[in-house]
Structures are given as C-alpha cells and as structure tokens.
C-alpha cells in the first residue's frame, strides 16, 4: 500500500488488486422481528474490504447503515448471509474488529485511561504492555492531560478521541466506525477527519467507515459504497483515487480540488435520488 503523492487516477480501476480480502460481508440481509413481517433493515448487501483499505458507506438516514455495521461487528446476527474475516466465519464480537460508535459509548464510571485500558485488561495484556500502549495512544490522540478525567468532564470531540484511542489500542485488524463524527461540531469534525486520514495513511488500518456526509466519504474513502433507502441495498460502488495529493492535506483544500468536486457531485447525486424518492 505504498502511495506516491501527486499521481492522478481516474478512480475506476481497482487500486489494490494484490491485497487479500480482510472483511467480507456476504449477501447480508437483516430483518428486525420475524422475516416478512418486521422491519427489513438491510437487503442482500455484499461488501468486501481489502487489507489496508478504507471503505466508506454512505446512504440516507435510516437506510440500514448502522445495522450493517453491527452485523459486521458481530453484535447482531444477520437474518441471511455471513460475515467473514480472512475468509473464515467471523464469529462473536471481539478486539480484532474494534468499533467506534457515533455516541462514543465510553464507560461513564471509568476515567480516560481506564477506558482506554479496558480492552487490554479484558484480554489479559500484561500490565507493563498496558502502560506502554496506553501512553502511546494518549500521545497520538492528544489526551495526556485528560488521562484522569471522567468522560462526563470532556467535550464531545475529546470523548470521541478517547473512543478512537480505546479502539486503536487493541491494535485491531479491522476498524469499524459508525458515523463517528456525526455528533461533533464542524471544527472538531474537520480536525478528527484529518487525523483519521493521517492514521490510515501511516498505519494502513483496514477500515469500514459509515457516514451520511458525502464530503467525508470523498475525503476519507478509498472506495465509497452508496446504499439505497431502506431496506438498504448497495446502489453503487465508486472507486476513488488513493494516491493523490489532495487527500493527504487539509479537508478544506481538498474540497476545492476539481476531482473532489466531481466525485462529490456524482455521489451526492446518487444519495439525493434515495432521499428525494422517499
């Protein structure tokens, strides 16, 4: 996944054909309640996330994006279809698939450092290793001065940094993020978008990222999956250029690039069809 900055691609080619599939959602359908009677949230969705790839799923609100992610994380059983990690059935949720939730989901009774160390303690990582990894995450996410604060004492942006640190500290093979910046103010969101972009570039995380923001999708994604309205199906998959300069810089600058504008227009058009036709 070495990326040479500056090279332009049309975006329709498969940019990482050599990478094996890391996470596969195969023909996922999900009914809440009895099939045929309850809520049909997701219908026959297949998504393949290759190793080191950043996949963004966009779609109108209520189309089944979160459902798809909870199924991908193993928190919900699909009604049909299966989830594979490295080609094998993924099984119950666990730290190979770390999740960052829109509502942070921090443990209110634990301080920042206790929250970050939680997963390490649950999985029996040694105390010294815990401290090393904690220190590393505190530094990366800029949380050192808040290590003994409780989540309720932090701003939304800081809370989401803690949640991201708590996910990354597990050194997950796959990172699942469900509208992680949806509850944040615009400035905080911009900064965290840039940080996630940087983390992905430097650490080559395999990410399945959910959002309803088309800008976010174009800026962050290697590939964007557009979903239809409920029951969510896959409407279109769009490959984005990966090794271009505008993706490595500030998001405001990226948003002025003609290529960005073109992709945003195309994807927004697809999403809009799903909203308008409700």
């Amino acid at each position, binding site marked *: 996944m070495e990326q040479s900055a500056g090279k332009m691609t049309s975006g329709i080619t498969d940019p990482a054909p050599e990478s094996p599939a890391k996470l596969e959602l195969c023909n996922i359908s999900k009914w809440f309640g009895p099939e045929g009677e309850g809520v049909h949230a997701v219908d026959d969705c297949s998504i393949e996330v290759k190793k080191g790839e950043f996949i963004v799923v966009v779609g109108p609100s209520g189309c089944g994006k979160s459902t798809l992610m909870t199924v991908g994380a193993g928190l919900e059983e699909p009604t049909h279809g299966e989830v594979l990690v490295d080609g094998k059935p993924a099984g119950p949720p666990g730290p190979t698939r770390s999740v960052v939730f829109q509502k942070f989901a921090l443990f209110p009774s634990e301080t920042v450092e206790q929250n970050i160390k939680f997963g390490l303690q649950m999985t029996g990582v040694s105390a010294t290793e815990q401290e090393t990894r904690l220190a590393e995450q505190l530094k990366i996410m800029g949380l050192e001065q808040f290590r003994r604060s409780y989540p*309720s004492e932090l701003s939304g942006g800081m809370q989401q940094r803690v949640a991201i640190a708590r996910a990354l500290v597990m050194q997950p093979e796959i990172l699942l993020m469900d509208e992680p910046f949806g509850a944040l103010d615009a400035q905080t969101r911009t900064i965290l978008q840039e940080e996630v972009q940087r983390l992905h570039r430097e650490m080559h995380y395999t990410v399945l990222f959910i959002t309803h923001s088309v800008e976010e999708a174009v800026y962050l994604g290697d590939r964007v999956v557009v979903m239809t309205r409920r029951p969510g199906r896959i409407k279109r998959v769009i490959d984005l250029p990966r090794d271009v300069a505008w993706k490595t810089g500030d998001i405001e600058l990226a948003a002025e690039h003609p290529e960005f504008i073109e992709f945003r227009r195309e994807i927004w058009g697809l999403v809009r069809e799903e909203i308008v036709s409700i």
Partner: protein
Amino acid sequence: MGQSRTLQVAASLGAILAWIVIWAWLTRPGGPVPTLYFPAPDDVWAKFVRMWQRPYIGSTLPNHILASLYIVLTGWGLAALVGIPLGIAMAWWKRLKWIVFPTFQLIRPVPPLAWIPLTILWLGIGDSARISVVFIAALVPWLMNSMLAVYSIDRLLLDAAKTLGANDHQILTRVVCRTALPTLVAAARMALGSAWSTLVAAEILAATAGLGYVAVNASQLLDTDVLLVAMFMIGILGIGMTGLIGLTQNWLAPWSVLGARRD
C-alpha cells in the same frame, strides 16, 4: 454560586427559627395552646437534656437511639446483602427473574407492618422480630432499584464492552455493577427511608427500647414533652442517615456527582 448557597442556608435556618418562634408564642404561659397538648420549646429542650442523662422507661436517650439504630441498620444491611445481588442477577438472567419475580410481586403489596403480627408470633417481641420487619421493608426498594439500575444501563455500553473482548462475566462485574453504582446509592437512600419509618412503627407495636417505644409510652403517660423529643430525634436521625448516604456517592461514584474532580 457560593453566594446563592449561603443565601439558601440562611433562608432555611431562618424558616426553622421562625417556626420555633411561632411555637414559643403559641405555647407561652396563658397562650392559646395548653402545654399538656403541646409543651413549650424550652420545656422540650430541658426534657431532652434530662433524658440524655437519666433513663426514661429503662434506658437513657442515647441508648434508645442506639437500640433503634441497631435494628434499622441491621435490617437495612441484611436487605442490601440480599436485595442488591438478587436484583442485579434478576435483571441480568431473565430466567432467574421468571422464577423469583412472581413470588416477589405476590409479597410486595403486603405492607411491611402487616408482617408484624406474624413475626411476633414466630420470633416474639425481641430484636429479631423487628429486624425481620425492617428487612422486609428495606428489601423491596433495594431489590427493585437494583433491577432498575441494571435496566437503565445503555445497551451500547454492553456492545462496546463486547467488541473490546469482555466476556459476560467481565461485563457484569466491570461494566454493569460499576455503572449501576449511582442508582444503587439512590436505592440505599430509599431503602433506608422505608426501613426507618417501618422501624418506628414496629417499635410502637413490639419493643423494649427504641425511639418508637419511647414515643408510644410517652403518649400513654401523657408525657407530651418526651413524645416531642422522641419525634424530633426520629426526624433528625432520618435526615442525618440520608445525608450520610448522599455523601458516600462522592467517593463511591465520583463521576456521577456534578462538578466531579478534575486533576
């Protein structure tokens, strides 16, 4: 904020003082209220001092207080030992709830005081009868609120814990029990309120010492001043114990207290 707090305390103290002044005025010599029905504040105070030093119906006031506290804290504490684990377990394991809850629902509408005749029959009028009644009175709020504490935990936290590799046992001990703490403090307060009021009633019916026992004897002997002393002590101790429980929240669950520490 500091200023409004001072103002609040001053207003509260002022109001209490005003009540005492009205009380003194109504019960002054030749005043509208005969002291047999309602003795003057200074008489009540004098009686309080006297009772603190000399025995009244068998014990000094401190010993009556200790007798009451012993019963209420034992019953309340035993109820906690049963109610908290059972409540949490019932909320956590549905099947346990299916088995235990119907019985509990059947017993619940019986007022704790209605147990007194039965406990006297079984246990006599000794401490154990009153402890049992207090236990029953405290068990209901302990158990119900412990269940509620678990139910009110955001499911998202359980999901988050699962994705971080926690198994069911770890989720129960580390996430559920800790997150439930603030609600359990509230449960403690409610259980104590229930236990305290039941105890006083139980002492009226069957006791050899205690504030309720003092009150009922004073009433029969027309010692209205003693009755008032007993009632004041019941009220003050109730406030004091609830206040102490409130304070424990600061160190049991500091995150749940507004303006928690930041360092």
